């Protein structure tokens, strides 16, 4: 029996070999590069200590990209949570008894599986301000109407709002499914006790259902922090390395990629940005966990 346990090392070997090569090594290599001035444009590399970190932390554009990322992420997470909670509450409400749950779930989830680059091109075509569908639907297509058209991409905040809303559109179905699963797993007895007490539907939802599904809410928000603060595909496909109007679409990842691979092609500084981002994401996740669980029980984190 004990001898058999040795097989484990053989079985997990492929995983950890590949893990070491393609995950661990790159992370460490990025860390080392962040202390050098390595650049694709020059052939020599030397150690520069913390100067990349210093120049990034004091760079206006880096912090602007941080602000941009939040400006896209915060409205998105609020809107997405609100819509998903509302729909999940309705679909699981035993009084309303809504029909077609399965179909609606599938339809709401559909935008989530489409490639982000495809969605970005879709946005580009739909939001084209002179000939895009959005303006045509909002205002009509006569000469007097075209004068009212909104140039969606000429203000940074508009770009951010649009990208945020598209993110919501892509993710509310996913979030709704997770929430529904959580609510449905709730013991019926908890409902019944509340119903007997005569609590209203809304009241039950806020005082019993929400606390019950808190771990799921926390999980969704944490994964959203990790994913949302790394957003790259859509802003990059739409605006590349100048970030559109007011550099509004320059998220931290776009900044990091541009710093490393375009502009002055500075891999060292780009690596430093990556590690600063890592720090920010880690701090945000832990801070949120702290807020979500407070002091009551520390074991109750995710995983």
């Amino acid at each position, binding site marked *: 029996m004990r001898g058999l346990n040795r097989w484990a090392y053989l*079985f997990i070997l492929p995983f950890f070999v590949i893990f070491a090569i393609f995950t661990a090594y790159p992370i460490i290599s990025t860390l080392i590069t962040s202390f050098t001035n390595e650049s694709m444009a020059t052939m020599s590399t030397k150690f520069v200590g913390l100067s990349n970190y210093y120049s990034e932390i004091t760079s206006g554009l880096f912090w602007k990209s941080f602000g941009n990322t939040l400006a896209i992420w915060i409205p998105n997470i609020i809107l997405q949570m609100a819509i998903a909670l509302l729909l999940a509450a309705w679909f699981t409400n035993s009084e309303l008894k809504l029909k077609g749950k399965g179909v609606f779930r599938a339809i709401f989830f559909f935008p989530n599986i489409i490639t982000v680059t495809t969605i970005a091109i879709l946005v580009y075509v739909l939001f084209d301000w002179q000939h895009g569908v959005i303006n045509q639907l909002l205002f009509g297509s006569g000469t007097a109407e075209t004068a009212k058209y909104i140039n969606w991409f000429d203000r940074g905040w508009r770009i951010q709002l649009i990208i945020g809303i598209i993110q919501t559109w892509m993710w509310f179905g996913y979030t709704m499914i997770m929430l529904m699963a959580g609510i449905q797993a709730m013991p019926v007895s908890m409902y019944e006790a509340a119903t007997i007490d005569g609590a209203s539907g809304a009241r039950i939802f806020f005082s019993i259902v929400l606390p019950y599904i808190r771990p799921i809410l926390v999980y969704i928000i944490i994964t959203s922090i990790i994913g949302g603060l790394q957003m790259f595909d859509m802003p990059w496909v739409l605006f590349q390395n100048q970030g559109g109007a007011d550099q509004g679409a320059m998220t931290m990842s776009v900044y*990091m990629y541009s710093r490393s691979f375009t502009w002055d092609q500075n891999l060292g500084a780009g690596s430093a940005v990556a590690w600063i981002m890592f720090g920010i994401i880690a701090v945000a996740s832990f801070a949120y966990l702290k807020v979500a669980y407070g002091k009551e029980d520390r074991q109750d984190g995710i995983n």
Partner: protein
Amino acid sequence: MTNKNNTSMLGISKMSTLNAKRLFAYAVILFFVLICILPFYIMVINATRSNNQVLSGVSLLPGQSTVDNFKNLIFGKIDPNSHIRGGGLNIPQGFLNSLIIAVSSTVLSGYFSALTAFSFVIYRFKGKKFLWSLILAVIMVPTVVGLVGFYQLISNLNMIDTYWPLILPAIASPFAVFFLRQYMISSIPLSLIEASRIDGASEIRIFHKIVLPLSMPGIATISILGFLGSWNSYLLPLIVLNNKQLFTMPLLIQQLNTTLYNRDFGAMSMGIAISIVPILLMFIFFSKFLIEGISSGGVKE
């Protein structure tokens, strides 16, 4: 509202508010259904209309330019003098490239994640706890942290413009291992494994004959997620692939926004439609699996 009415009215008014509520809920749901479907519908319709028609207004009915749009997208615009087409995007090739990468990495990820998860469920070995927390930790690490290093690694390994760096890492998919471990704990009876050991089955045979078939539903779920992840991946192929012939679908689709010849709304819509259709088909077949996978993941967290 209700407590102002007398008791005999209560039941009826409660019924009618419930009906009103239901109607309202359906209206809101319908709105979201439209929002989820309409953009794709308009794109598919626009794929059948000429650039000029698309520019001049919305239509819910198809046009006649499907073939032209398809040719302009795939082969580029035609030069009336030389009759040579140029600047097209080879979407069928991109489709094949994406398929090769996604299928290979899904198969690798499914097999090796199951093997790894199996080891963590069944065996007791030194360093197990440490390795497990390593896997959990890495799920939380953002991909951008290793991006520059990954790029340096593959250029040193001479792997630029090959599919290895996009396929091999699938062998180490921490999330899949995490998911399958949860799945196996609840679905694989240890007694069965003990019994086969007594029958003299080798460990790898136990894995292939008992564990793998029993975990198939879980593997299927994680494989669909893995397939989608690989199919939709953009940043890594962007770094790894140079040659346009090797481009995956997302890289080619991104070209719609930068290539000279494809600045044509009809052709662009065609590109979007073509890239959506296979996913739509897959979705119709697998959406149940997928949604159940997400649901079960949600409950188990």
